[in-house]
Every structure is written in structure tokens, then in C-alpha cells.
């Protein structure tokens, strides 16, 4: 009887609750909005990656951005992984992945998932359009919960944009980042932040925690996708990428005034005329009203980027084009990365030793480094690197200074071969005899392996290539046109392998106008030499030659390609020293002497 009673009760309750439920049926547009959100999240989830360190001890999250498996994550996620990692997708499949490029300052890394050419991808958004009050969601692997690789989703509001979060030393700086109250926990690191439409607007990597332990307290930060877009080609080049600096420092004066309080006389900014006491008005198209705003804007650019700076002196605004130097000396950066990689693994869900540590980022801080020189690092000695999967091995090449040289070599070869083959430049000979017009007058140029001679209307110049090249920077005012041409000729003659040290840098803007070019860099007898290619058709659009770190380069812009005896060659050369025009050369003839041993075999 009692039993029946309870059943009746239950039924009544059920009936009641059904009634109650039907009474609060949400409005159709609410249901529609919900359905739409479910759809967006479902789609976005397919591109989310659960990253595990090879031995399964640590990991984080990532997001795939191209069908061939390139995925973004944090540098601090891949740093302990070495070259290889395991990546789970929400279809339950586990893939091998290899590190491609790293940006330790920006805490970004690019990896490639292997084994498919039709990976689901996230659509890149525009993080500059994100506003406070937008809805956003994070997908990832918090606390490494995704045992079956099904990612966790957390929804929230954009709490702030263009935020700046200080680096630890000089690494892991979050400049111009997005702040959200969508839950970002340890393990979410490297995972995507999507806008309400499912477009990728950032890569989560950091949160403010402080005394509350290492769990979300409503303050997470994502690296803006627009920053990452600038670095992407550099990361794809297998490089360790550095960020840009300025060569000068500023302080905030009275409201809205940012004033140069120190400047390096060797910096590009100094050469462009910036001086102590000048007021910074605009940088890279952004109005600058505080020192913080300048730092925020600057932190989103890779080293070598060219952008505009507007400064005010005596009430007059001046706009100049700046080539941004790096934050680090390259060797210094490599050493720092080495230290990061040697840090002991710390699973992200392990509580901090001191929960009240004023730690502001998911990565371990300075004090947790193994004490070098005090005790031998037992953990490292005992740890046996898991064998690298064959697929990863075939795409990994360890070279000091690179995250993965395999990718760099591939890009170099691809660019150069395409340029050479598309323009039939297999045999460019050892000596060129060139003639043409400059300012409606005649000029001529003869350049061979040891010597060049150029006759311009006003001056005749000679350069010898036997000894130190930095004493041969003629014609005067060109910044070293003959040396630049010599290096180009040498590259055409010897090919990439025999030229000297060569690497592919990535894409940079050609001048402040913003046209992007692929940049191949070579070094020879202390000279840095850059070949700039158009990403559209692979044409060589420019040369840059730097006699030293602190000098303006000699720049040659190539255009008006024409057929010359079966080869396709640029017939207009605009020569600049730094930003100062030197000559606009229109070529009328170009004779190539292939006499002495043809370089067919050498030019690979």
C-alpha cells in the first residue's frame, strides 16, 4: 500500500513537473538562439586539439587552422614536449604531431598534425573587431580531462580588449590580448577562443589567479589572432621567432603625451630622425596616448617588421617608416629556449606548491627552474626520450637556432626553385654586361665574380669582391649596390647550399605600404643579404643588403620583368639607401656571359 502511495506520489509529481515544465517553455527565438549556439559550438569543437606530451605526463590544447594539419598552441605547452607530441581530436582519433615553429616571447607555437590532408579547421576571425560585451567561448582540455579527446567548452563575455600582460623576464608577454570570463583553466592553454559565430579570435594561454589557487576566477587571457597572423609565415618556416622592439623608450607625461626618454643612436628610429624629447603620436596606425598603449601595439609585431611611426616635435608631426629591431640577440633567445625546454614537467592539474603564489600565468616561473650546477638533474638523466614516431622523424631536423629546420629547408627550396625554374635562370653565368637609362641618361654596369664596374652619368665606381666587402660599398650614396648585386649573382651561380648560411625568414611588409613579401636571408662575409619574393607569383621583387646591424640597407626593387634571350628578367631597378632614393634604373640590355664553367649542376 505504502509502495503504491509512493508511486502515485511520484506520478503526481511527474505530472506536476510536466505541467510546470510546459508552463515555462521558452520563447521560440530563445530556443532558436540556443540551437544556433549548439550548432556553432559543435562545428568549432571539431578543430580543437587535445595535446599530450609523448609520455602522457603533461599537455594542453590547440586548434587546427589548415586542412594539412597546422595547429596553433602555446609555446609553454610544446616546450616540455620536445619535437613530437600526440594530438587527440573530438572524433576520438589520436594523431602524431611535430613541432614546426615557436614564438617564445608571444607564447605561441605552431605544430603539424600528421596523417591526413583533410583535417577540420577553424575559421580565423578579426580580433581587432572584438568588443567588450561580445560573447565568446573557449574550447580545450582543462585539467587534461579529455581522456577520450572530447574537448570541454566554456562560454563567457569579453571583459577587456587590447590588454597588456607583463612577460616573465622577456618571454611570455601577452600584448594586445583579449580578456574573457569564459573559464580558462590550466590545460586550456593553447586552445582556441571563438567568437559567438565560431570564428577563431584568439589562443588562450594565461589567467590571473594570485591567492586563489590555479583555477579560473573569471580572468583569462587569449593571444589575439591578428597578432598570430603576422607571425604565422615565420612560424611555418620552422623558426624560433623573436618579437620587435623599438630602439627607444618612452614615458607617459601629462595626459595623452608619450615622450621619448631614451634612444639608441644605432637604431633605425634614430636614423629616421627621432630624438630625445619627441612626442610619439601614432604607431602602426594606432593612436598612442600612454606608454602602455605603445607597448601593447608593439608587442604584436615580429622582429624585422616595417611599420609607420608618427612623432611630434615643435608642434610639427612627422611620419616615418621604421624597421623594427628584435627584443633579443638571436643567440641569447636560443639559450633562453633551451632553459625553458629543460624545465621539469609539471602536469597542469597539479596544485601549486604554494597556492598563494602571486603567479599570473599557467607556466612555471623563475624560481621553479632546476638549480643548475647545484645537483645533477636526476629527472633528466633518468628520463628516456620516447622514440620519435617515424612519421615525425621524416619531418624533423634538429639544427641549433631552429624549432624544426626541416620546414625551413623546404620553404627555402620551394621559393628558390620556383624563382629559378619559372624564369629559366639555370645558367645566369659569371659575368653580366648591363646597359640602360637613368634620368634619361646612359648608364652601364659590368659585374663578374671578382669585380664590378658601374658608370653612372655623374660617377664611375668600382668594387672588388676579393677581400672584405664592407669596404666596397659603392657607388657612393647607394649603400652598396654593387655588393648587393654581387651577392645576388653569387646566389644564382652557387645555389642555396653553396652560397653560405641561408634561411627562410617568413613574410614581411615591403615598406610601410603593407604589401607582403617572402623573405629569404643569406649571410656572406659578414653581409646580410635578403631576397624578397612576391607570394602571388614567386617573382623576385627586391633585394636588401645590410653591411652591418646598425646600417641602413641598400634596397633594390625589381619590376617590369621582360624576356631576355630566353630568360625572364627584371628590367627596372629602383635603388634606395635606407629610405633615400638613389637611382631609378631602366635596363635596355643585359648580356650574360656563360663562358667559364657553366653552373648548371651547382645551381640546384
Amino acid at each position: 500500500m505504502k509502495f503504491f502511495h509512493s508511486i502515485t506520489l511520484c506520478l503526481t509529481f511527474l505530472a506536476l513537473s510536466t505541467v510546470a515544465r510546459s508552463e515555462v517553455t521558452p520563447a521560440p527565438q530563445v530556443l532558436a538562439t540556443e540551437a544556433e549556439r549548439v550548432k556553432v559550438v559543435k562545428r568549432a569543437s571539431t578543430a580543437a586539439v587535445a595535446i599530450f606530451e609523448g609520455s602522457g605526463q603533461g599537455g594542453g590544447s590547440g586548434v587546427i587552422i589548415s586542412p594539412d594539419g597546422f595547429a596553433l598552441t602555446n609555446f609553454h605547452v610544446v616546450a616540455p614536449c620536445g619535437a613530437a607530441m600526440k594530438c587527440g581530436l573530438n572524433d576520438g582519433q589520436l594523431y602524431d604531431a611535430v613541432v614546426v615553429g615557436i614564438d617564445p616571447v608571444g607564447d605561441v607555437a605552431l605544430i603539424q598534425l600528421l596523417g591526413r590532408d583533410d583535417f577540420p579547421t577553424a575559421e580565423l576571425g578579426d580580433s581587432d573587431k572584438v568588443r567588450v560585451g561580445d560573447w565568446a567561448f573557449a574550447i580545450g582540455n582543462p585539467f587534461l580531462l579529455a581522456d577520450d579527446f572530447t574537448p570541454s567548452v566554456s562560454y563567457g563575455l569579453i571583459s577587456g580588449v587590447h590588454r597588456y600582460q607583463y612577460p616573465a623576464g622577456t618571454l611570455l608577454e601577452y600584448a594586445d590580448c583579449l580578456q574573457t570570463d569564459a573559464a580558462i583553466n590550466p590545460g586550456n592553454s593553447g586552445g582556441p577562443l571563438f567568437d559567438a559565430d565560431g570564428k577563431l579570435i584568439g589562443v588562450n594561454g594565461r589567467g590571473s589567479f594570485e591567492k586563489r589557487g590555479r583555477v579560473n576566477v573569471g580572468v583569462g587571457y587569449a593571444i589575439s589572432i591578428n597578432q598570430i597572423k603576422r607571425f604565422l609565415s615565420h612560424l611555418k618556416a620552422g623558426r624560433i621567432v623573436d618579437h620587435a622592439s623599438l630602439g627607444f623608450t618612452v614615458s607617459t607625461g601629462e595626459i595623452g603625451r608619450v615622450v621619448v626618454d631614451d634612444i639608441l643612436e644605432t637604431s633605425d628610429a634614430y636614423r629616421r630622425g627621432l630624438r630625445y624629447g619627441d612626442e610619439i603620436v601614432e604607431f602602426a596606425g594606432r593612436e598612442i596616448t600612454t606608454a602602455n598603449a605603445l607597448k601593447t601595439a608593439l608587442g604584436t609585431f615580429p622582429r624585422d617588421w616595417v611599420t609607420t611611426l608618427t612623432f611630434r616635435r615643435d608642434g610639427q608631426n612627422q611620419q616615418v617608416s621604421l624597421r623594427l629591431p628584435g627584443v633579443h640577440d638571436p643567440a641569447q633567445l636560443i639559450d633562453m629556449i633551451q632553459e625553458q625546454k629543460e624545465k621539469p614537467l609539471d602536469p597542469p592539474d597539479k596544485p601549486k606548491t604554494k597556492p598563494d603564489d602571486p603567479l599570473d600565468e599557467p607556466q612555471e616561473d623563475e624560481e621553479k627552474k632546476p638549480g643548475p650546477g647545484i645537483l645533477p638533474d636526476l629527472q633528466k638523466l633518468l628520463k628516456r626520450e620516447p622514440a620519435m614516431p617515424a612519421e615525425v622523424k621524416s619531418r624533423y631536423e634538429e639544427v641549433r637556432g631552429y624549432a624544426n629546420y626541416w620546414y625551413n629547408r623546404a620553404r627555402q627550396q620551394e621559393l628558390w626553385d620556383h624563382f629559378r625554374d619559372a624564369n629559366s635562370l639555370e645558367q645566369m653565368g659569371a659575368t653580366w654586361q648591363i646597359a640602360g637609362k637613368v634620368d634619361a641618361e646612359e648608364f652601364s654596369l659590368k659585374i663578374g665574380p671578382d669585380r664590378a664596374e658601374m658608370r653612372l652619368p655623374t660617377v664611375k665606381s668600382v668594387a672588388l669582391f676579393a677581400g672584405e666587402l664592407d669596404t666596397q660599398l659603392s657607388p657612393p650614396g647607394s649603400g652598396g649596390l654593387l655588393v648587393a648585386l654581387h651577392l645576388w649573382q653569387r646566389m644564382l651561380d652557387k645555389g642555396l647550399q653553396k652560397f653560405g648560411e641561408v634561411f627562410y625568414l617568413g613574410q614581411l611588409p615591403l615598406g610601410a605600404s603593407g604589401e607582403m613579401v617572402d623573405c629569404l636571408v643569406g649571410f656572406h662575409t659578414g653581409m646580410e643579404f635578403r631576397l624578397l619574393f612576391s607570394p602571388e607569383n614567386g617573382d623576385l621583387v627586391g633585394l636588401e643588403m645590410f653591411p652591418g646591424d646598425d646600417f641602413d640597407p641598400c634596397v633594390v626593387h625589381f619590376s617590369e620583368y621582360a624576356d631576355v634571350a630566353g630568360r625572364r628578367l627584371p628590367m627596372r631597378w629602383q635603388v634606395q639607401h635606407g629610405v633615400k632614393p638613389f637611382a631609378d634604373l631602366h635596363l635596355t640590355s643585359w648580356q650574360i656571359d656563360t663562358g667559364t664553367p657553366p653552373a648548371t649542376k651547382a645551381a640546384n
Partner: protein
Amino acid sequence: MNRTLCQIVCPLALLVVLVDFTRAAAADLHEVVRQTQQKVVKIYGAGGLKQMEAYQSGILVSPEGHVLTVLSYVLDTDDLAVVLDDGRKFQPERIGTDPLRELALLKLPLEEGETLPYFDLRQRPEVEIGDRVLALSNLYGIAAGDEPVSVLQGALTAIAPLDARRGSFTTNYHDDVYVVDAYANNPGAAGGALVNWQGELLGLLGKELKSRITGTWLNYALPTANFAESVDNMIAGRANNIEPPSQLPEESLSTELLGIRLIPDVLRLTPPYIDAVRRGSSAESAGLRPDDLIVFAGGKQIASCRALVEELSYHDQRDEIPLLVLRDGGIVEMVLKLAPEAPAEATGETEP
């Protein structure tokens, strides 16, 4: 009959229109956020040691630049700075304090005739559990210079009396607070605004506190209704006249008259602890006890024995003088009034 109906229906219709209008006007959350951010300020002051952030938040409560914030060590400096949403920086004047609710009122030195956007404390929007709310503050000091403060979202989860502790001490405020599920009370958030999706102020984000029962961090705000009057009083300067009077009263109060013996005044700032209370004295009948620490007298913060003696000298013997004392980690409120003592018994003293 018709008229009566009309009297009812018309305002109703008007109300419906009004409600609809406010809804429509508030349709864009971005705009609400942007406008509300301009009424929240960043405050920088003392602190900076581990776990003692040198910053907090505040809200503008008058067009003339009155800023309401929480009373804390951050304000204990002559170098206090208030930074507005547009990046302008002010050195504020301290107008008043409400020790019970741990609030402080600052005033920005604005130009003559200049006004700022502000929260009107007389507006009290209806609040229900389940309402969606926004918490605006400079938590973690993230917003620097002219950066707008951070915005977090959540729902109002409870309206309940505050039962909290700071360290091992129970806090003094025991009235209702709004409990929210947003992480509203992070370091630096205290003094920020809790608003609804129309941008109307619901309450002031409180200091970082833990639940006395569960030990978890609380996310809460003091409802506007609980502090609006106190703010009015502070703005009006009632009970908060900081300046010493130009003329001393003919017959001033003194510790001796009231029956208070303070501990020996041996330091420049000897804390005004009560050593003994004379039996049958006004102090005893007001409830003062030995070991009480006097923290406020006549609405003014008292930092030393000397300050207390001075403050008493400003009051006439006929005045009532409100006191706040710290006893067993809690604040006790009382009013002292000089009354004739029974002379026969006025011999002994209660010793601690």
C-alpha cells in the same frame, strides 16, 4: 467608474510603454557596458606588498565627482590617485568614512561647472534572484591608464545576510548582500559596480571575504539601498566634519569627565585603548569597557590617545558623541552623553 478605470489603465499603459522603452534602449549590451564603464574609476594608493594590492575600484555617485569606494589600507596614503575611464588622473579629497559598512567617500577636484557621468543612488531598479548582472571593476589592476575597467557577467544567485570573515575575524556587516555567480570580488575589484543589463546600479562590489561557514571566497555586492543614506550623509558632511571648529566650546568634554582612563600615552601615536572605566560614569553606562580600542569618535577616525583628547575638546559637555570601538575583533557602536554621576559610588574603577 470609467474615470477610475482610466486612472488605473493609463498609468499602467504608460508603465508598459516605459518598460518597453527601457528594454529597447538597453538592447545593445556593448553600449550599456561602455556607458557603465565610464562611471567606474580606478584607485591607486598604499600597498603593493605580497597579497596587498595597491589598487582598488570606485564608482562615481554624483555629477560633481564624488567617488564611493571601500575603506581599506589602499586609502592610507597622501598620494592617493583616482583615474577616470578617459585616463585623467586626480588627487582626490577624502570626504567621509562609514566604518560600519567599510566605505569611504572621495571627491575629485573638478573644474568649475564640469560634470561626470555617475550612478544615481536614488534609483533602485527591481531586483530578483536569477537576474543577469554585470560586475565592472579594475580587478587585478588589469586596466591601465585610459583602458576601460573589466566586465564580468553572471546571475544574481541569492539575497542573503553576509556571514563572512577576513582572516580569522568575523566581519561587521551582517545585512543582506547580493550574491552573484560571477567572480566579482577578485583582488582590486572592491568598490566596483554591480549593475543589471540596463546598466542600472544594483550594488557596490565588496572587499575580498570568505564565507564564515564554508571558507570559500564570496562573490557579492552591498545593495544600493543599504548604503545610499550613508553616502548622502557623507556628501552632506554630517558626522564627518573633518576640520576642527574655529572656536572651542566653553565647557569641553574630557576623558576625565566621561570616566575614561586611557593607557599611558607614551608614543607619538599611542593606540587609544581604554585602561579603565570609572564606576557609575557616563562611559560605563554607555557600555565602554577596559581594553576597548576607540577607532571613531564623533564620526572622525581616531588614531591616537592624543587625537581622542583633542576630538573631545571640540565637543561641548552637552553634546552627544557617537563612538565606535573595536572589541574582540568586532566593531561596537555606542553613544556617549555626559550625565551627572552618583557621587557616593564614584570611587572605584573597573579594572581589566
